[in-house]
């Protein structure tokens, strides 16, 4: 096993919450549904949890093995490795997408002058050095960062309560049902089902039987936070909420207490920095660990830097312009992600069940 660290189920939950909040803190999901976004999130949460059930069941069935090893066992060496490479591509690409979101937000709102490359490299360096320290360091960081983030979210929500206008949430469900369902599904694929990357991490649980509950607890908590944030944004910003790229950021800008507690949206930006760091680190970790397992390396540490650089390059060349980025995220990603999030794990699980793997007598087929 390339990773000698082990984490507790509590740490896994917290890391998963951080991961899910990662980019959704700033790009509030369900934007297509307008003021019914919170309903879309709730539905997406349900769908996402079902999806999570699939891959969690798959991985926990095999206890200490990551998806790469599981693929080898279920599909045989050749096809297994091909499928694993597909996953690796997904993780790498997703990491690049998150980096895109990251840099786009900061250049837009805070630092228009800083070159994208510089920002990307700095983030990548920190993520790389954290991944270098292993999953335990990552989990422990999340234990400090995530409660902080959630506290900040609650704090600003408290401050915004005076500005709530619940009429903005009415009328409920005036959306064509098709649009709502599509929105719900896109919420499921971003951010909830992106937790499929945890198929690389669930192998390192102290007590693997607690894994399922840890994952569902985390998704529910993250989902609740997002729902509350969504309600808050709609209540404060009104019908324009769908037009904003970054509704949470806009909403918090409204806070102005006696001229001193203004500009609190910087806290939202800080949240994004920390949670984004967690998400990118997890994705980098999954990619690097997975690649090392596919190639049978002795350690994933030497390839962290090159893979990180490739992720940065991918982020730089991903899209020709921003419009395409948003197009991709809203229209294409919910479809593009389905094979990775749902189809492949499901097929793997079915085949594993049919072949009655893992064999309890320890033999490999």
């Amino acid at each position, binding site marked *: 096993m390339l990773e000698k660290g082990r984490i*507790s189920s*509590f*740490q896994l939950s917290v890391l998963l919450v951080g991961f899910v909040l990662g980019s959704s803190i700033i790009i509030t999901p369900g934007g297509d549904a307008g003021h019914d976004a919170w309903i879309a999130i709730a539905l997406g949460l349900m769908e996402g949890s079902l999806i999570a059930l699939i891959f969690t069941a798959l991985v926990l069935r095999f206890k200490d093995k990551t998806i790469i090893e599981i693929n080898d066992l279920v599909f045989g060496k050749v096809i297994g490795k091909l499928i694993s490479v597909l996953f690796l591509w997904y993780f790498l690409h997703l990491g690049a997408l998150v980096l895109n979101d990251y840099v786009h937000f*900061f250049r837009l709102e*805070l*630092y228009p002058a*800083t070159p994208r490359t510089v*920002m990307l490299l*700095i*983030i990548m360096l*920190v993520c790389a*050095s*954290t991944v270098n*320290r*292993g999953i*335990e*360091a*990552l*989990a*422990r*960081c999340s*234990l*400090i*960062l995530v409660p902080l983030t959630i506290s900040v979210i609650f704090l600003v929500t408290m401050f915004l309560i005076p500005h709530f206008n619940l009429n903005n949430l009415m009328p409920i469900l005036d959306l064509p049902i098709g649009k709502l369902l599509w929105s719900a599904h896109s919420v499921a694929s971003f951010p909830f089902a992106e937790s499929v990357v945890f198929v690389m991490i669930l192998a390192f649980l102290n007590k693997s039987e607690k894994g399922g509950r840890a994952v569902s607890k985390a998704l529910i908590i993250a989902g609740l936070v997002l729902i509350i944030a969504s309600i808050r944004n709609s209540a404060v910003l009104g019908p324009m909420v769908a037009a904003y790229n970054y509704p949470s950021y806009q909403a918090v800008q409204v806070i102005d207490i006696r*001229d*001193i*507690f*203004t*500009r609190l949206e*910087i806290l939202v*930006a*800080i949240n994004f*920095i*920390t949670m984004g*760091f967690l998400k990118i680190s997890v994705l980098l970790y999954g990619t690097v660990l997975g690649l090392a397992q596919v190639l049978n390396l002795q350690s994933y540490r030497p390839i962290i830097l090159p893979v990180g650089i490739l992720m940065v390059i991918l982020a730089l060349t991903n899209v020709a312009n921003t419009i395409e980025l948003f197009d991709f995220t809203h229209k294409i990603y919910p479809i593009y992600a389905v094979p990775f999030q749902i189809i492949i794990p499901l097929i793997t699980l079915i085949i594993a069940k049919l072949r009655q793997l893992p064999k309890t007598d320890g033999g490999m087929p």
Partner: protein
Amino acid sequence: MKATKKVSPVNLSRKLEDNLKNIKDSLGESSDIIIREMKISSNANVDAAVIYIDGLVDRDLVSRDILQPLMFNLQFIKDKVGQKNSSLLGCIKSSVLTVGQVETTENIDSIISSVMTGQTAMLAEGSIQALVIDTKGWEKRAIESPENEISIRGPKDSFTETLRINTALLRRKIRDPNLSLVSMQIGQRSKTDVVIAYIKGITPDNLIEEIKQRLKRIDTDAILDIGYIEQYIEENPLSLVPTVGTSERPDVVTARMLEGRAAILVDGSPMALTVPFLFVEGFQNPDDYYARPFFASFVRIIRLLGFLLSIYLPGIYVALKSFHPELFPTPLLITVAAAREGHPFPVVLEALLMLILFEILREAGLRLPRSLGQAVSIVGALVIGQAAVSAGLVGAPMVIVVAATAIASFMVVPFADTGALFRLIMTIVAGFLGLFGMIIISLEVLSHLAALRSLGVPYLSPVTPLNTSDLIKDTWLRAPLWALGSRPAFLDPLDKKRQSPDQKPHPPQNNPNERKS
């Protein structure tokens, strides 16, 4: 092992002359080596010699308890001793010498090393053994109050440079026979006595084993101070934060030992090491335990805030001024902007200048002779601070920021050096990348701390891995003493209970003084 000495016999011979010659060869011609030859009369006049180093021995002890009994108890010895001289020394050891610690040896090297540490060797003609008598007594500093760790309510004794006094100070606080001291000698030339102190039954055994291994690994010329030991045994020498705790107070050291840590003391150093050392310990002060809980918790939180302030404040100021002026609260913005009129340097440079100046002042203040101390503080405060502002070189808000930072930086003693470094790094990063950069670097630091371990214990315990009961009881809140029933779990102590559960005090049921009103 490594030393290439000329070949000399290992053990004593029966002839006193040969022995003395061999020893004189090894010891050399130093003027403080005293070899006192004498005669002990039993049946035949027996030649004997006493060897010691003047200045390391207690002279009264040597003359009163060694030489005097030998020279005046002739009749007694004559009566006691049979014909065989080999029991002469045995008789002397058991019945004549009135000193506490006496041992026998046949090995010349051990005689020499004992004499070098202040013991007295006694040889007699015809005997292949020698006596080694403990006569250590040199000039030492009295027990004074601690200079660097000041406590308002607590005891005011601190360690001194003599190992035996320090171990005695520990024993005075813990009179449990389970308090064990393991001795070693480290250092080729200094042969410094090093002691590991721990409480058997609380400290896990593998911890002591690990410490012993690390100490045995040390192979160097001299251990001049406990700082040497710290740098040789810490497991993260490149880390910016210490993973080994130090203290000059016996009450702090014993409190830590009672939680399951081990202490290391070194002869010649008035500081003790405690391992394992965790991040939260930097915020714990002995006074927290001697004061009442609400105030103690309050002070702890202030300490944490002060520490964070001292690291981030200059950076935040620089970042806001350079990149995000809109983040200043509006009333403050006008004042701050006005203060910046006509200043030649960019904010980053100003901040760095002031910070480095402060470090210079601090270091110079430590080294100055006392007579100049006052002058320097006046120069520092008035001339540099005030004049620089008036001359327009540095903004007034900057001076305030740096002054507040400077004072706050002393709140957390173990991290004072670390804090100074972080502060500089933060300020530089703030100047180039603003708040974003500061947060990213903070994440890197967090990640580093999260991965750190001190002798196997994760550095950020009990925050992560999370242990809520420890977190509430003794990190940034201090629960009342009667609630601290068990020792912290992260140290994995063998004996988990500290006190019985019903320690909370309450008013007496029947108050004899209560008057019926």
